[in-house]
């Protein structure tokens, strides 16, 4: 689909991710490190999952294999999310100690959101890079590709749209999950894994002939829901406190 087409697909998938990166993350090196660590951990979890399932790759006939595959995959990634949460607790501790030592304000709510955002964006970007962008290379050429089960849109388009949905979901559900763990709200804590599972299973709809339309719409609407929930959380949180960290001597609630 030529260079423009290929780039277009990449931008569809990565657009919001890049925007988030350049507005929030690029100014703070700590967040960049967090992002990279999270991308790496997603990659490691992917390697683990694929090393287990490589031998049992489902084909057209044995599509039911996808179900345990998805279950284990989602489980693995949610385990990673929990690990992040514990890591984050330790990091927060260290950072607060440093802040006290430097007579600077402790971690503000917005800072916490930003760190959670960095973790989540790392996951999301990793997902998009490996599931979508890495496969876009043929799209830079003169032709395009359709898959049998989906004649409505080219393979690349589908991958890009789904990638976009997943990026948003990963990013925002990390924020939701962190907030849930911090506040101890069970509903929020289970929201992230729940949404993750829901979305993965909805992609199974793509296996059916012509089902890809539903699959994509489901993914994107899940993404919308997740972003809405996250937005609401942030709105609630930050309307209590005043905003950002440059105001000094403000201790965290």
């Amino acid at each position, binding site marked *: 689909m030529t260079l423009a087409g290929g780039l277009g697909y990449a931008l569809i998938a990565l657009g919001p991710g890049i925007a988030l990166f350049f507005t929030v993350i*690029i*100014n*703070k*090196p*700590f*967040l*960049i*490190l967090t992002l*990279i660590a999270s*991308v*790496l951990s997603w*990659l490691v979890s*992917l*390697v683990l*999952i*694929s*090393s287990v*399932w*490589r031998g049992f*790759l*489902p084909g057209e006939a044995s*599509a039911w294999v*996808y179900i345990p595959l*998805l279950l284990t*995959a*989602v489980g693995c990634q949610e385990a990673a999310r929990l690990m992040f949460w514990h890591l984050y607790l330790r990091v927060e501790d*260290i*950072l607060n*100690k*440093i*802040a006290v*030592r*430097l007579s*600077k304000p402790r971690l503000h709510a917005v800072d916490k959101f930003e760190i959670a955002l960095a973790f989540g964006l790392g996951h999301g970007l990793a*997902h998009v*890079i*490996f*599931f*979508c*962008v*890495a*496969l*876009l*290379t043929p799209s830079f050429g003169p032709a395009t590709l359709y*898959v049998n089960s*989906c004649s409505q849109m080219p*393979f690349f388009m*589908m*991958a890009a749209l*789904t990638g976009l949905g997943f990026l948003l979901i990963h990013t925002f559900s990390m924020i939701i999950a962190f907030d849930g763990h911090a506040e101890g709200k069970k509903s929020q804590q289970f929201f992230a894994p729940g949404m993750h599972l829901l*979305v*993965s299973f909805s*992609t*199974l709809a*793509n*296996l059916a002939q012509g089902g*890809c339309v539903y*699959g994509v719409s489901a*993914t994107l609407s899940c993404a919308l829901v997740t972003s809405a929930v996250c937005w609401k959380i942030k709105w609630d949180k930050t309307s209590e406190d005043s905003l950002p*960290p440059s105001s000094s001597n403000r201790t965290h609630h």
Partner: protein
Amino acid sequence: MLLVVLLVQSLAPHGSDAPVNSIAMLVYDEQPTDSFSEKLGGAVLNALVFVIIVAIVTFLLVLLFYFRCTKCLRAYMGFSAFMVLAYMGGGVAVLLIQSFSIPIDAVTFAVLLYNFATVGVLAVFFSKMPIFVTQGYLVMIGVLVAYWFTMLPEWTTWVLLMAMALYDVVAVLLPGGPLNMLVELAIARDEDIPALIYEARPTTRYIASLPTSPSAVSRNSSASGPAAVATRPPPRWRRRVTTTPVSGNVANLVTGQPAAIDMPEPARNNDNVRPIGISALRIESQVPEQSGQQQQGVGGLLLNNTNDHQENGPAVVERWTTRRSSSSDEEDTVPLVSSQAQALIPPHSTVIMDGVESSFPSAARSEAVNIEALLEDVVGNGESGVLSGAIKLGLGDFIFYSVLVGRAAMYDMMTVYACYLAIVAGLGSTLILLTVWRRALPALPISITLGVIFYLLTRFIVDPFMVNLSTHYVYF
């Protein structure tokens, strides 16, 4: 790395059919039809020969350094830089012209190439050029050498990378290793090591109130130059780790130099950039504008870069010399370490090398900064909105990373991303190790090992898995 990947993709997407005859293929000429064990055996032999040659040449360099004939070193480096830019640059340019059917005649091409090469040598060695030109040329040299290496046959390349990583460990950590000796010599004499480093300009913006002095004067400098306490006698050279602009702000970690550096040369880059925030606690003396003194912040991470040997066709090991005075480029480091962390740093522990040898492994001592202090710096800077620490890495390290990534590109982009991440992870962990171990560390081994492992895993396991999932539109 990005440029090498692009070059590989446009010129030789599946490996070259006629691998270049180089010193690395002295023993075994790999054919695609050879059996597995033949290929492996041959590749190992090739790599062995290469490493031995590199070791010999490194010892030679150490000897030259020992006898202080810096003129020979500099002349040699200038010559090899010219050769790389002209010969390899010309070769790659011809390939590109053929591939993209660019209309250009031979005379114009010759003139342009000659100019390109000469300006390159000047930019790299004799400085006084805008920093972007110098950086650009360093990147070009790295890309060209890396691309040349990717033209080696596949097995040889991988085994060679592993062999270089091993050699790096040996050369730097063992007391008899050439790089270790070089470092000792340099420390003992308190001299600069002739070397080539790549330094990234900090790409994050500075707080508006920071005065920045024109730093284009010295070659490898970027604006920084925090004023900080000079608490100990100035070591003559420092070393830092740097990242390329391509990898951007990724590893913009803290580096800082703990002491005032005494430089006799007048053409020093004196920067008066000071970050607000942390340094507000500690700024004491202003860096005098035109003096030879420069005071730096404390604490830093010094990444030891080790190794780079590149051999190209003519069995020439390249080394690049920097000017002695380019040590003024420490400057882009902002004193990120707080005064408490300053106290942590033992005196005389700052061995900072000015230039990192790009052609042979160079060792550096690391400053002891514990993780808290490190985080402190990173976070502190983040809060004040400034991160001005640029890190320096030896060019050879970049070259080998690029070779790895370039080779990965010959399979698929997925391996490229995986290997890139692995290399970054390796770099990060090397940095952390540096703060823990406080001694010279080779920069190659962890990254290369992780890179090779991830390449193999991605190629054989992850890729089929991913392709299966995506073509069925099942995601998680």
